[in-house]
């Protein structure tokens, strides 16, 4: 009997197995319960694939979308606000991949571990300001593109608009045709554009850190320069000029020369260091990766790559993070589309460059505004910026870029504006940026 007694303990192996399994199950439930519950087939919160309860508001509590209790959703009152926020909110049918109704369905369902989805209906607070988004959308005036404004101290996006939109309350019957090209995509997160001259900030950062005599140099621009398989040209001959003037005048020849001297490997490394060729995570959204191709020394491709042409591609959100780092002494906070709690500390900043490099870039960006863009065009803004006019070929008008930040007292905002086929960077995108920033300052609280 004694033997059998002892052997009976083998049933406890099964007990142990069940206990381990249950702990694992509860752990998985705690980690993924929200995702599990937020499935369109879950009839306790969805009907016909549409969420039955929940609310999304902007940072000021303005209701952007709410379940109407009859199986449908109502959105913001104002049509331009609805169009401006379409890509952040999504629609109840789940067409917009980046929409909060899809990405944060678990938060909107009101799921939590203790009550499950009982009672239903949570409130999701976005970091954006609906008014600012509406202003950005209006400033784009129907042109496709994206506008984003971020608080570079906290990483909260106050504006994240993608243009090329429709009214989710009255969706058009057909979304075919050029006007709706890429209409389901949030261009801030999911697009990658040829950057044009805004890429010169990257080349400049590499030059500042790698060429000790950069500020003593005197460059000469004859309007064009020859390389092994082609040439680089400027709109006009800039003559002799210092580094600051080369950036302010956006001289292709000088930046082609700097790129050739630095080489593709170094520029590629800087792109990676600044997070421009990798994917960034913005809460649960993933940005598209940018691209920088390393060309052989001496080629025109390498030269052009330093001026943001060749095969360069940049994602606007990653670019925003990069200029936020310049604004914030070289370190950037992670970007957020959800309003961050006032109590919990924010995630740590990531240092992208040395403080000295950031300050040197800031100085030269301010010089660009003063010398080229005209401070008068940006009244009341202590602006630091760089424009880009990215040639896209095929006879199309170039994409207009405008990136930068302001250092107005207590208003730490960085921005990125892209107007597809908008023409001149400073003229087209700069005007949009000014309009949005003026609203941001007026509404600042």
């Amino acid at each position, binding site marked *: *009997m004694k*033997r059998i007694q002892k052997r009976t303990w083998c049933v406890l192996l099964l007990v142990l197995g069940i206990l381990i399994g249950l702990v694992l199950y509860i752990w998985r439930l705690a980690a993924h319960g929200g995702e599990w519950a937020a499935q369109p087939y879950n009839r306790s919160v969805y009907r016909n694939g549409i969420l039955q309860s929940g609310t999304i508001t902007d940072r000021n509590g303005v209701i952007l979308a709410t379940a109407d209790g009859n199986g449908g959703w109502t959105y913001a009152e104002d049509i331009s606000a609805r169009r401006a926020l379409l890509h952040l909110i999504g629609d109840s049918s789940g067409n917009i991949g980046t929409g909060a109704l899809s990405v944060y369905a678990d938060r909107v369902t009101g799921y939590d571990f203790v009550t499950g989805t009982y009672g239903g209906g949570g409130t999701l607070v976005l970091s954006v300001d609906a008014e600012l988004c509406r202003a950005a959308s209006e400033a784009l005036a129907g042109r496709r593109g994206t506008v984003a404004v971020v608080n570079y101290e906290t990483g909260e996006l106050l504006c994240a608009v993608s243009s090329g939109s429709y009214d989710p309350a009255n969706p058009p019957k057909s979304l075919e045709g050029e006007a709706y090209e890429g209409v389901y995509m949030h261009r801030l997160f999911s697009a990658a554009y040829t950057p044009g001259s805004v890429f010169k900030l990257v080349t400049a950062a590499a030059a500042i850190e790698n060429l000790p005599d950069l500020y003593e140099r005197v460059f000469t621009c004859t309007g064009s320069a020859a390389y092994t398989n082609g040439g680089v040209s400027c709109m006009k001959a800039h003559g002799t000029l210092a580094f600051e003037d080369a950036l302010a005048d956006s001289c292709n020849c000088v930046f082609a020369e700097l790129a050739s001297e630095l080489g593709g490997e170094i520029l590629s490394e800087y792109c990676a260091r600044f997070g421009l060729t990798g994917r960034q995570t913005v809460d649960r959204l993933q940005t598209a990766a940018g691209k920088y191709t390393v060309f052989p020394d001496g080629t025109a491709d390498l030269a052009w790559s330093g001026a943001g042409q060749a095969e360069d591609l940049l994602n606007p959100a990653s670019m925003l993070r990069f200029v936020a780092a310049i604004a914030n002494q070289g370190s950037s906070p992670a970007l957020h589309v959800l309003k961050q709690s006032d109590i919990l500390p924010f995630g740590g900043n990531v240092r992208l460059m040395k403080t000295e490099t950031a300050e040197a870039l800031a100085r030269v960006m301010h010089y660009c505004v003063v010398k080229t863009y005209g401070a008068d065009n940006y009244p009341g803004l202590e602006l630091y910026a760089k424009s880009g006019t990215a040639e896209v070929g095929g006879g199309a008008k170039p994409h207009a870029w405008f990136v930068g930040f302001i250092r107005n007292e207590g208003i730490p905002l960085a921005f990125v504006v892209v107007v597809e086929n908008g023409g001149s960077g400073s003229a087209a995108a700069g005007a949009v940026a000014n309009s949005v920033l003026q609203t941001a300052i007026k509404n600042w609280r």
Partner: protein
Amino acid sequence: MNGLEAVVSAFADWFSCGVRFVLPVLAILIVVRCGLSLLQRDAEDIEVWGWLTLPNGSRVALRHWENILGRSGSSDVCLAYPTLSRRHAAIIRDMRGNWVLYDLHSRHGVRLNRDPIGGQAELHAGDLLSLGDVDLVFLPLTAEEETAQAESRTVPGRTIRPGFTLLLLLLFQLLLTLQHCIAADQADVLQISVCFFVLILLTWCAYLLIRAMRRTGFEIETLAFLLSSVGFSVAATSAPGFMWKNTLCLVLGVGLFFCIGWCLRDLNRVRRLRWAAAAAGLLLLAVNVFTAESLLGARNWLSIGRFSFQPSELVKVFFVFAGAATLDRLFRKRNIWLFVVYSGLCVLALAVISDFGTAVVFFTAYLVIAYLRSGDAATVILSVAAALFAGATAITLRPYIAVRFSRWGNAWADLNGYGYQQTRTMTAAASGGLFGQGAGKGWLHTVVAADTDMVFGVVSEELGLLIALCLVAALLLLAVFVACASRHSRSSYYSIASAAAVSILLMQVILNVFGSMDMLPFTGVTFPFVSRGGSSLIASWGLLAFIRAADTRQNASFTVKLPKRRKTENDQ
């Protein structure tokens, strides 16, 4: 009239919300009270059934009804004399208090009162046993000593009253009934309430019957009735029109429980019935292999008239009944080989009808029985190796099993194909939270086989994770009880049978819960007592009888005869 309806509707809403919190509290209280009562043992509660006087004058107690004498340290009576074999002899007592001495193929033989015994001989008080050259005097407990011992043993229900636990269960059942009546269609209310009423009636009849038999332990039955009540809740949600079937099966199950329990009272009767049970099991499986129809993948359903049932469920009971053995049988090699062949036939039959989940459950029971009987880790390892080989063969012969294996763990990657049932289970379970959406208010039961194979999800969704965990805890408790009770076990038959029965229940829990949650391949095994399905419920109650028989606390179990009554028999 409208005013009254409004009040009723407001009450219904208020009740449905509040009862979600009351039910888990009751379930936890019931499980905790049963657990404390089951695992509570008085410190001095060690049974002694006789004494052996050693050559040096000291006495050794016989603590079981089956005792091994030998040189080995694992013997019940360890005698370190060189002429003894490691396992020399066995002394075994039967229900009536008769003792038999067995020679376990010892090297130097066993003599009784100087005469060599053949294989076995009856023992009487004062007999002189000679094992090799060691002489021992045998003295069984006198009737007075036995009575005194009975009084000092643990009596269940003395500190934790089973009646009160049962009142908690009654409240649980009543609240559940009311909630289902609120949530269900008007047309089903009558059937639901009548069936729940029968469940409650049956609970109390069983209790009163056991009290009438002067037994005081009711924890194991209470746990099973708790599980069955939740099973009724699942049935009321998923198929209220067929609740009468569930009720009928519960009546049959409880009947089977008492039937087997009664059989187990007398081990001689068990010995006689073992062969019949083994044959009945094989016969059922044979009928299954040749006639059963295919339903939901496995060909394990048998239809007779309006009833369809799974014979393999009932075979579990026969398997345990035939597989366990008393100590005197354990040392005959022939027996274990017969058992191995018998198990192989069972598992093979299940594999033929593609019921692989149940095959795994049987195999687990086989491993437990084989290990308990032989104590030989090598046998177990060999068996596992053979099973893996057989499993690999099965996978190559039946490609859909290979598919199941390759996709297991990736349910979300194919949530409308392979992972359809698992993802629905996880979604519904998460939606329930700790307290559930309310009985009768879930949707998972509309998915195919939800009320049997994914029942853990249905319970989590409607009654909440806490109650779902209580169900598992109730069965874990039975396993811990079985492991602890074996210390006091009188016969190895009870130890082996209870361990095998509880292993079957636990293995079903493992496959059911973790299969439906995509942590193991989804095999479609029932959750004991809870899954809707008649044969599973009946079999669960049948297996419970073996666990009940392991309970040797004083006056606890109806499967153990009362010693007082036996004493009066002896006096006559």
